[in-house]
């Protein structure tokens, strides 16, 4: 029998949009990726999904804030994953879209209670990301059932 980490016993598949959106609801922690002064930057933030839009919350950070308040809408990438460190089985989702800082107190009152900052700090920055491109990859163990299945993948 092959090891679970043997590439031959693993299957990589693309996640359809609906499945990727469902997985985004399962986790609360993700990473916002942006370009700041021509250098790629990444921050861990919390998220929640509402009406098909992603809402992120982060503690105040000057670099992140400058992206969120930039005139016109900035493009950012949001990534989240859950990959078992031992088996390396799991999934990763990447979302690309325009980001907009939420400043209306009505919306903030509604959304902030749903955001739980991973580091326990308050969410000073709350922003929408409109998902334009959503891609996901899953790495799964091939079970005997898969191996016996008639339909090729």
């Amino acid at each position: 029998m092959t090891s679970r980490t043997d590439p031959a016993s693993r299957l990589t598949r693309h996640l359809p949009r609906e499945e990727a959106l469902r997985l985004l609801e399962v986790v609360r922690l993700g990473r916002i990726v942006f370009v700041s002064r021509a250098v790629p930057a990444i921050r861990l933030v919390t998220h929640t999904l509402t009406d098909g839009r992603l809402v992120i919350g982060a503690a105040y950070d000057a670099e992140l804030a400058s992206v969120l308040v930039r005139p016109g809408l900035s493009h950012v990438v949001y990534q989240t994953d859950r990959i078992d460190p031992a088996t390396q089985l799991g999934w990763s989702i990447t979302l690309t879209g325009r980001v907009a800082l939420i400043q209306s107190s009505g919306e903030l009152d509604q959304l902030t209670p749903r955001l739980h900052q991973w580091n326990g700090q308050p969410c000073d920055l709350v922003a929408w990301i409109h998902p334009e491109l959503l891609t996901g990859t899953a790495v799964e163990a091939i079970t005997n059932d898969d191996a016996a299945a008639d339909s090729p993948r």
Partner: protein
Amino acid sequence: MTTAARQIRDLSREEALDRLGSISLGRIVFTRNALPEIRPVNHLLDGHTVIIRSHLGAAIVSAAAERGVVVAYEADNLDPVTHLGWSVIVTGTAYLIREPAAIAHYQQRLRPWIARDMDYVIAIGADLVTGIELTAIR
């Protein structure tokens, strides 16, 4: 989830690199056509250099090959429920490893998260290292 009983601590450069070296999965962040991109990859730490295997395509590889390109690398070990744990971010210049013996050496020690044919070995210098750790207060 309660978020009150926890404390945040900045990790020193050495502590952050130690933690980075203790796990194998992270995420490389780079720019392509002025837009940011991120991919989960496996890494190992060789001294103060992060080594990854990648099939990231022409953009990062060609940029890394010429004169190096600045990338960020993030790895964390955070509990999905309590969010306790640590996160480390390295920012540095990535360059392509070209020496066949070094490539073979690293390819033996690193397996890619997703197996692909096009396979490069990229080194990322740890120019800037930041890390934080969240622990429960007892």
